């Protein structure tokens, strides 16, 4: 059977609710993952893993509808999994196998004939940078190599969509850079849509164009990163002497968005028209000295922080 079926490359969720007993892990989630590289962000317990389980057709939603690559997940979970690659977060392999036998075995499980699976395994192992180590058993691999082998098994059957769960976990800086370069290459030049679940915002910012932020089982925000970053006003990094928390509250009372990090630095979004003058006015009114003020560029971290703060009651 050659690749057939719906050609839609996107992932669409419509009012999806997933429950574990009484607990709602996903609450009325509606989101669209367009083709390309999409980051799936959220704090622990936000529902990222549940979303991936549901999209793989392994966890039936209590309500709502999911379409992956044009297939209804509830009706055709096997068709979905035949065209999807999944790189799990935790260390996962089949004991006693060499890399090439493991990856070709995964290819066979995905429906490739044995000879083709072996050939693909060699190609994919070279692609992920394990060509020289492909005859070693996986138990002898370093953490970084194990991450690469997980990517190889997800790629062996040439999926249209990849789920990558924390692909840079435990990797050294060089390995991490190489993995991110691979991820970006897969999404851009290989035209494979990928959903990258990560808690490392710089990884997502480097590799993805779109982002979906989950918080407490609901979508906090979603869209192109560039659009979300350039949302409103100008961004300043601010350090003050005085009651920082009271100052932040005062800024918020004036309608100025403000995020305080643990290191005493504030990231303040000032409206275009008011500029930094408004900020100084608030500081004077509350007896706070502004010790440091520097224009900054919005990052994905700001998008994330803003999305989560908007969700808080």
């Amino acid at each position: 059977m050659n690749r057939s079926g719906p050609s839609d490359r996107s992932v669409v969720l419509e009012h999806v609710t997933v429950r574990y007993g009484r607990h709602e892990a996903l609450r009325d989630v509606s989101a669209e993952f367009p083709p390309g590289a999409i980051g799936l962000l959220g704090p622990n317990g936000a529902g990222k893993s549940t979303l991936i389980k549901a999209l793989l057709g392994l966890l039936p939603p209590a309500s709502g509808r999911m379409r992956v690559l044009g297939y209804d997940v509830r009706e055709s979970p096997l068709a979905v999994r035949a065209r999807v690659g999944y790189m799990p977060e935790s260390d996962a392999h089949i004991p006693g196998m060499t890399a090439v036998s493991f990856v070709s075995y995964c290819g066979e499980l995905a429906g490739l004939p044995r000879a083709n699976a072996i050939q693909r395994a060699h190609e994919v192992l070279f692609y992920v940078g394990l060509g020289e180590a492909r005859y070693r058993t996986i138990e002898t691999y370093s953490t970084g190599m194990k991450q690469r082998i997980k990517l190889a098994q997800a790629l062996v059957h040439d999926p249209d969509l990849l789920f990558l769960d924390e692909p840079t976990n435990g990797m050294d800086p060089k390995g991490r850079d190489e993995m991110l370069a691979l991820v970006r290459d897969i999404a851009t030049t290989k035209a494979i849509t990928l959903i990258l679940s990560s808690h490392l915002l710089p990884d997502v910012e480097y590799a993805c164009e779109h982002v979906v932020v989950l918080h407490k089982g609901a979508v906090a925000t979603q869209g192109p990163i560039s659009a979300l970053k350039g949302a409103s006003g100008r961004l300043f990094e601010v350090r003050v002497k005085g009651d920082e928390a009271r100052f932040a509250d005062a800024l918020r009372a004036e309608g100025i968005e403000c995020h305080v990090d643990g290191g005493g630095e504030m990231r303040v979004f000032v409206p275009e028209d008011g500029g930094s003058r408004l900020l100084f006015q608030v500081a004077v009114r509350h007896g706070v000295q502004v010790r440091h003020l520097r224009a900054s560029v919005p990052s994905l971290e700001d998008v994330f922080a803003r999305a989560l703060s908007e969700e808080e009651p």
Partner: protein
Amino acid sequence: MPIHDQGYRHYTGERALHGRGWWVIARAGVLDRLRERRFLALLLFAWSLFVVRAVQLYFGETMARAVFFAPTERTFQLFLEQQRLFVFFITVYAGAGLIASDRQSHALQIYLSKPITRNEYIAGKLLTLAIFLAGVTWVPAMLLLVLQVLFSGSLEFVAGHPRLVPAMTLASALQVALAAVTMVALSSLSRSRRFASMLYAGMVIFAAAIARVLEASTGQPGWALLSPERTLLVVNGAIFGAGSDSAVPLAVATGALAALFAACIAILERRVRAVDIVA
């Protein structure tokens, strides 16, 4: 050179329809085990009784004075019952790690993210063990029958015992299925191959010992049902039409085995869960 420059080609070849994952799993499992010399030695040793029985058949069919070696249905029934020892060792060796090792190395999430169902996964694991077990029960039993025909030079014995082939097949199938299903179910309970082995050994050896002690102390034959092995002997006796030493009724023994199968399937249903896929 960045590693991604080494190329990635899209696959344009054939893709199989879903539903053959069980065979891929079973074949890989069998080939993987056959690479182990110790296991090959065990398989070879498991055929030692076959050699003894083959010699017995030879003398029974070719020497007039060795008529007491002449085969009966009981010969083949006894052969299958004696193979229980090797069934036990092969089950422990080849079966204990079937799911436990996958659980330990988080391989379940790899399997179940592929286009295979849980049932296919379980069927593949069961078949892996069943192939080896059939190789030391049904295959040598049938070969003994072939040797009998060759040594006697006639089909008289086979024609005279028309239920022997179906009985051997059914008895072997039951023996293989019981060992495979219980071992795979016990293997799914743990991440440790050793622990699964101990569970199975406990179920076979200690359950039989406890059953005998309770039987002797209370005088109730029903305690034999505690031991799957002894329960199986009751059913096997009925299959060969030879009865059994136990006073347990056939219907009760059959019901006990059915309950054991159901319990194993329930364990597998609970332990091999798709939701385990994402840790």
